[in-house]
């Protein structure tokens, strides 16, 4: 029996049992589709995070209090040894540094007329928009003298502006931050949704001095944002800051730093790590569905071959050889697995497109996931189509014919 005839026999048999064929393929379709879609979400989140950090610039440095060895990645709050004067000294003494912005953060309740909103308060310096490449959309940012005199002024994130003013012009209005009145100077440009983690537009910026005195009642700062004059001089700036702070903090030679300086790649790394966990988690869930799909394929294949023992007997009685039976079932399994795998890829890629379109999440289809999913489900399908067929083809034709 040649290939064409075998293919014809197999296709006829599949066509004869459309429902069973469809159900078998369905396990593969869903398994493959789920893996591809899930992994694409994880990969997309990772890319988004990387792109975000990329866009923030490579000349950024962040100075945090506390030594690097002590676990305090985005630390702050628990250390009090970083002062406003440190930031000023960095700006004055480090030649490779362009701007600095001392930061203190907190949360507060905002009130405007009858509206309430709870949000993050960023206490920052006047160069914050330049350092973070985050300009104001309307109005102005506060200036140096407003910072120095700790004025009660605020610049709103677009989300806050939207929620408190609902499209009305906020500039010049007075909002209450923890019952203290602040005058709104401007609104920051919208950063847009960010992969579903948190909304970066849900914040207001006020002078750090005001935040220290009026809101938090502290005299230290939590971090310093620094921008080097150019990306190529970032390392130089880091060295200068380190040297300066060691002198200012009177650290003996050999003593550990009581601060740590991170650049963008450090921050990006820890953020990518988080999305990596997401990818692994989603991939894990999808693998389970692939496994369940595999068990489904196995079941249907085993049952269908058992159910078809009589058919095998009939074929044998009219002269089918062991090999003919095997080839037929193998061809059926291959056709179903490949067709199912192909449809699964279509489903996976399609749903990841839909997710990125409707859920506003970036997705990225990974070739590795496609290959893994297709190979796995195809092997399961082929093996469990082949193995029982091999057993059946060894049967005595008389027994096979008598099988009920």
């Amino acid at each position: 029996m040649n290939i064409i005839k075998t293919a014809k026999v197999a296709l006829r048999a599949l066509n004869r049992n459309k429902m069973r064929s469809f159900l078998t393929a369905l396990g593969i379709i869903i398994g493959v589709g789920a893996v591809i879609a899930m992994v694409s979400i994880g990969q997309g989140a990772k890319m988004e995070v990387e792109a975000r950090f990329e866009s923030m610039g490579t000349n950024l440095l962040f100075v945090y209090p506390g030594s690097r060895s002590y676990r305090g990645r985005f630390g702050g709050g628990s250390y009090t040894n970083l002062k406003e004067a440190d930031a000023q000294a960095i700006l004055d003494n480090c030649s490779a540094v362009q701007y600095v912005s001392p930061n203190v953060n907190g949360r507060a309740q905002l009130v405007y007329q009858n509206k309430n909103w709870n949000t993050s308060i960023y206490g920052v310096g006047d160069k914050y928009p330049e350092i973070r490449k985050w300009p104001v959309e309307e109005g102005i940012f506060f200036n140096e003298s407003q910072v120095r005199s700790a004025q009660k002024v605020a610049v709103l994130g677009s989300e806050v502006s939207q929620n408190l003013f609902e499209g009305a012009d906020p500039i010049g209005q007075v909002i209450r931050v923890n019952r203290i009145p602040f005058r709104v100077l401007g609104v920051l440009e919208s950063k847009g949704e960010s992969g579903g983690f948190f909304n970066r537009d849900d914040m207001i910026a006020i002078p750090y001095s005001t935040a220290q005195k009026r809101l938090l009642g502290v005299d230290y700062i939590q971090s310093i944002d620094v921008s080097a004059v150019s990306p190529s001089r970032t390392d130089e700036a880091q060295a200068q800051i380190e040297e300066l702070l060691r002198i200012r903090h009177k650290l003996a030679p050999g003593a550990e730093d009581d601060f740590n300086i991170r650049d963008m790649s450090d921050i990006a790394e820890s953020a990518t790590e988080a999305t990596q966990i997401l990818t692994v988690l989603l991939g894990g869930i999808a693998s389970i569905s692939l496994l369940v799909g595999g068990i489904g394929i196995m079941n249907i294949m085993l049952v269908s071959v058992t159910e078809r023992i009589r058919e095998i007997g009939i074929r044998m009685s009219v002269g089918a050889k062991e090999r003919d039976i095997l080839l037929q079932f193998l061809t059926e399994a291959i056709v179903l697995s490949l067709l199912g795998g192909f449809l699964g890829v279509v489903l996976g890629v399609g749903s990841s497109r839909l997710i990125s379109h409707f859920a506003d999440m970036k997705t990225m289809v990974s070739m590795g996931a496609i290959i893994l999913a297709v190979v796995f489900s195809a092997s399961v399908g082929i093996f469990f189509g082949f193995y029982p067929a091999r057993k059946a083809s060894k049967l005595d034709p008389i027994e096979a014919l008598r099988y009920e």
Partner: protein
Amino acid sequence: MENNKLIHLENIERVYKVGETQVKALKGITYDVLKGDLLAIMGPSGSGKSTLMNIIGCLDRPTAGKYLLEGQEVSKLNKNQLAGIRNKRIGFVFQNFNLLSRTTALENTELPLLYSDVSGKKTREMAMNSLALVGLEGRELHKTNQLSGGEMQRVAIARALVNGPSLVLADEPTGNLDTKTGNEIMEIFTKLNREKNITIVLVTHDPEVAEAAEKTIFLRDGEIEKIEHNGK
């Protein structure tokens, strides 16, 4: 006379092992079937008639004895060689039809040709001819579940004939049919035997069916009890 022997059975024995005990289903059958015979095998259940038919049909091999089909020793062939013989030289008709479900009459008839080296085009032609022979013209594309019992048995006969076999074996071919339809099926067999000179071996326990045959072998407890000639 030697050339005229289609089947030569010599001391055929078949022993089944059931656990420790051995059951002798056939205890030395010796018989010759001539070309063009219409032979009936009768006997009560357990007499070994199905076992004998399975051996003649190359579905099973005898434990001992010699079986020559058209002069060729087949009792020592392996499974694949037996499949080849079933494909080309033997056609089967079963009591329960044994057709593929949800499949057209034509496709069922084509089935043996798919396992031989007949080309695709010729396959269709041969199957159509065979269906015409049993009076099913125009019903080629009906699926098995749209056919009556008699029609299904005709499809089975068409399938048995399609590859031009030297021997057609029928195991209780009228067993699942009413008397009238059974008679029609028997007419087809006798007509094929008379007009096409096809050798037919029928297994039955219906004496009326056996009457249509020229010779009848009566089996009892795995041995030939008697042979009757219908004097034709």
